[in-house]
C-alpha cells in the first residue's frame, strides 16, 4: 500500500505497549518531514481493557487527530478484533493475531502469527515484544514511513545500541511475516 495520508489504528489491551508504538510511528513521520498526531483511548486498567492508539499522518496540517476512516488497523486482542472486523470498509487493511478467535480472514483481513513469533523467539532465548512485531508487520504492508526514520527514532529514544538493535530486530521479524503478502490497491 502506498498513500500520501494515513490513518492507522493500533488496538489491543492495556499493557501491550500500543501507545508506545503509536508514538514511535508518529515520531518517525515527523522525522520523515510529515505531520503526525497520535491520540489514545484506554480504560482505567493498566493491564487489560480495550486500548488503542490512533495515528494520523499527512503532508498537510492535521485538523482532527483521531482516526475517522482507518487505512490500517492492527488488532492484538480479541476485544479489538471484535470491534473492528465487521466495521471496516473494504478499503481498510486489518492485521490481527492468528491465535485470536472471531477473525474472518479475507482479502484485506489478514491473520498473522504475532504471538507465535514472540513465543518462538522466547524459545531461542530472545525477548521480542509483541507490539513491535505488530508494528513491523504494519510497516511491512503499508509504506507509511521510511524505515530509516523508524531507525532514527529508536536511536533518539534509546542510548543503548543493544536496545535499539533489539527493537529493530523485533520490527523486522514483524515485517518478515508479510513480505510475501501483496495487496492490490
Amino acid at each position, binding site marked *: 500500500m502506498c498513500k500520501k495520508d494515513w490513518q492507522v489504528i493500533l488496538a489491543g489491551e492495556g499493557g501491550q505497549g500500543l501507545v508506545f508504538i*503509536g*508514538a514511535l510511528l*508518529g*515520531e518517525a513521520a*515527523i522525522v520523515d518531514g510529515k*505531520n*503526525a*498526531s*497520535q*491520540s*489514545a*483511548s*484506554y*480504560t*482505567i486498567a493498566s493491564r487489560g481493557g480495550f486500548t488503542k492508539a490512533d495515528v494520523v499522518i499527512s503532508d498537510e496540517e*492535521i*485538523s*482532527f*487527530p*483521531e482516526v*475517522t476512516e482507518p487505512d490500517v488497523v492492527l488488532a492484538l486482542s480479541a476485544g479489538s478484533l471484535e470491534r473492528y472486523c465487521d466495521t471496516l470498509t473494504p478499503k481498510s487493511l486489518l492485521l490481527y493475531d492468528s491465535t485470536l478467535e472471531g477473525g474472518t480472514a479475507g482479502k484485506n483481513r489478514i491473520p498473522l502469527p504475532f504471538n507465535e513469533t514472540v513465543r518462538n523467539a522466547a524459545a531461542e532465548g530472545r525477548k521480542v515484544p509483541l507490539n513491535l512485531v505488530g508494528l513491523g508487520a504494519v510497516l511491512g504492508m503499508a509504506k507509511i514511513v521510511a524505515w530509516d526514520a523508524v531507525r532514527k527514532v529508536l536511536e533518539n529514544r534509546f542510548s543503548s545500541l543493544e536496545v535499539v538493535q533489539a527493537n529493530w530486530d523485533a520490527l523486522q521479524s514483524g515485517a518478515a511475516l508479510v513480505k510475501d503478502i501483496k495487496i492490490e490497491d
Partner: protein
Amino acid sequence: MVQSEVKFISGNEACAEGAFYAQARFYAGYPITPSSEIAQIASERLPTLGGCYVQMEDEIASIAAIIGASCCGVKSFTATSGPGFSLMQENLGVAIMGEVPCVIINVQRSGPSTGLATSPAQADIMQCRWGTHGDHAIIALTPSSVQECYELTIRAFNLSEKYRSPVVILSDKTVAQMREKVILFTPGEVELLERKKPTGSPGEYLSFRPDDDGIPPMASFGDPHLLRITSSTHNEQGFTDDDPSNAFTLIRRLYDKIEDNADDITQIKTYFMEDAETTFITFGITARAALNAVHKLREEGNKVGLINLLTMWPFPACKIKEAVANCRSLLVPEMNLGQLVREVERACCAKEVHSYTKSNGKNIFPGEIIQAWRDSL
C-alpha cells in the same frame, strides 16, 4: 544561534515544557488521570532546574502550596482534573482574593464527580468561571493542539504575573494526551513577564494598594517590603475591613482588572471567515473536529468558517461579535450539555445560534458537526 527544537510530545508534556520555559520553578500537586504526566515531568525536571516538586496530600493542599511558593516570588503551578479541580475551588478563591499569581492546569475529563477517568469532556467551563464562591473574575485559556498547550502555558504565566491573578488552562483529555509536532522556543524568543515589584520604601509599601492600572505591586516573602496576603475582604494594608465601600471597591477592582482588559487577555483564531455564512464557534479538541468539518464542507462549496477560542474567560465577546458580523448563523459544538452556547448567545444575541452537544465521554467527530450543520439549515 540556538535552533528551535522540534519534538513529538503530548499536550501534557507541552504544558510542562511551557511552564519550564516561563521560568516556573515550583510544582505542588496530587496525581490524577489524565493530568498525571505533568506531575511526573515536573518531578523529574524541576530538580534539574534548581526548582522543587512536592507531592501534596490532596488538591486543596496542592493549590495552597503553590500560593505559598508564589508569595516567595517563585513562579508556581499545579495540574489536575475534574475531581481535583473541584477541591481546588476553595483556594482558587484565595489566589483571586489574595492576588497571587499561579497557574492551574485542569485537564478536563468526563464527569460529574469521578465520572469517566480516562474519557474526554469539556464540561468544566462554568465550574472554571464560577466554581469558587463570590463575585470574581478569572482568566482561563483553552488549547486545542500540542503547540497551543506549550504556547498558552507560557502565556498563562505571563498573564498571571501581569494581572496578579491565578490563570487556569482548561485542557481536555484528548489534547492533553495526544502527541503532535511542537516547536519549542529558544531562550529569549518569547518575552516573559514578571510581576511588578514595589518601588517605594519598605515603610510605605501596602500589599494591596493598586497602581493606576488597578494592579498592586507585589513584594515577596523575605523582602524588606512586608507582604501581607489575606483571603478575607481587606483594605490596602491587607487587614480585614468590613466597611461596605471598601468591600465594594475591592470586589470591583478584582473584577475590573480582568474584565476591563479582556482585549489584552483574550485570543481567538479564525478560519475562513472572509465569506462565511455560518460560523462554528468552539474550542479545545472540538475545534479540531470543527476545522476538519470546515475543510470538508468548503470542498463541497459551502461557506462555513470557524472561530477557535483560545481564551474562555474573560469571554472574548467583542472579538467574536466582530468576527461574525457578516455571518447569518452560528453553530456551537461542545462536549457538554450546552455551557458555551449560552455565552455565545449572550454575546451575539442578534444572530441565529444553533447548538450541538455531546456528553458521553467520546469526542465530537467531524461528521457529527457536518450533520448538525445540515440539520440547522
